[in-house]
């Protein structure tokens, strides 16, 4: 049976870090999946992930739908210098219950095709608290660039805490 979901690389932080980069990504898969379980050392109960493909600083846009249990919102940001510019790819932060981490998945179809790169994002922050720190977001992102994605920068809004983990998978058509 063909292996269609392959772990390319992973990083679990033993020390805090501001960013994690996956570089020299092989162009041999059909799609990429980024999974992150992240917590920020910053004060407060809200933090988020942002990043760049190929260190590019242009061509990012996103349309988001987000809710926190009492209010829901939808919006769009365009012509951004990073992905995650809306601030709704959430992670937990130091003000949340200890050892809680936000979960994010970014799906990147056809990352090696010479076309613009639409992506889907699903992100949840759950803080094991009845009153604060719960956010769920879905997002349609676009990187308006035809280059093959060969590196992925994931950066914190502050600093990623110890134990934050990042996984990059390759999807192959069977």
């Amino acid at each position, binding site marked *: 049976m063909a292996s269609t979901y392959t772990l*390319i690389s992973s990083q679990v932080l033993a020390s805090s*870090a501001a*960013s994690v*980069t996956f570089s020299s990504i092989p162009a041999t898969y059909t799609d990429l999946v980024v999974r992150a379980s992240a917590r920020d050392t910053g004060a407060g109960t809200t933090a988020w992930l*942002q990043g760049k493909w190929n260190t590019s600083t242009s061509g990012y846009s996103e349309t988001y739908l987000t809710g926190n249990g009492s209010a829901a*919102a939808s919006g769009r940001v365009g012509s951004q210098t990073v992905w995650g510019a809306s*601030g709704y790819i959430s992670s937990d932060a130091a003000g949340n219950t200890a050892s809680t981490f936000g979960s994010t998945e970014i799906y990147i179809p056809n990352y090696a095709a010479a076309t613009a790169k639409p992506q889907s994002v699903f992100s949840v922050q759950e803080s094991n608290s009845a009153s604060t720190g719960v956010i769920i977001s879905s997002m349609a992102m676009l990187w308006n660039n035809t280059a093959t994605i060969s590196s992925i920068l994931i950066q914190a809004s502050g600093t990623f805490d110890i134990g934050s983990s990042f996984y990059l998978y390759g999807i192959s058509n069977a």
Partner: protein
Amino acid sequence: MTDTPQAVEVNCTTGEVTTRPLTAEEIAAQEAAASAAADQREAAEAEDKAKADAKASAMAKLAALGLSADEVAALSA
């Protein structure tokens, strides 16, 4: 003294993991991106709150005109 933020890079071809301090330019760019997102979220949430407040005000005025709670709810559904 604040420690310089660190960048972790994983080479997916060789498996090599490199940790280095962010440059001043990288720190500035990251802080600017985070600040812009905070501003974006704050503006979006203020806009949403204004809409919710306006809706609640309109519903209260309808109720004051004599509409029942069920009638107000039907209008806002």
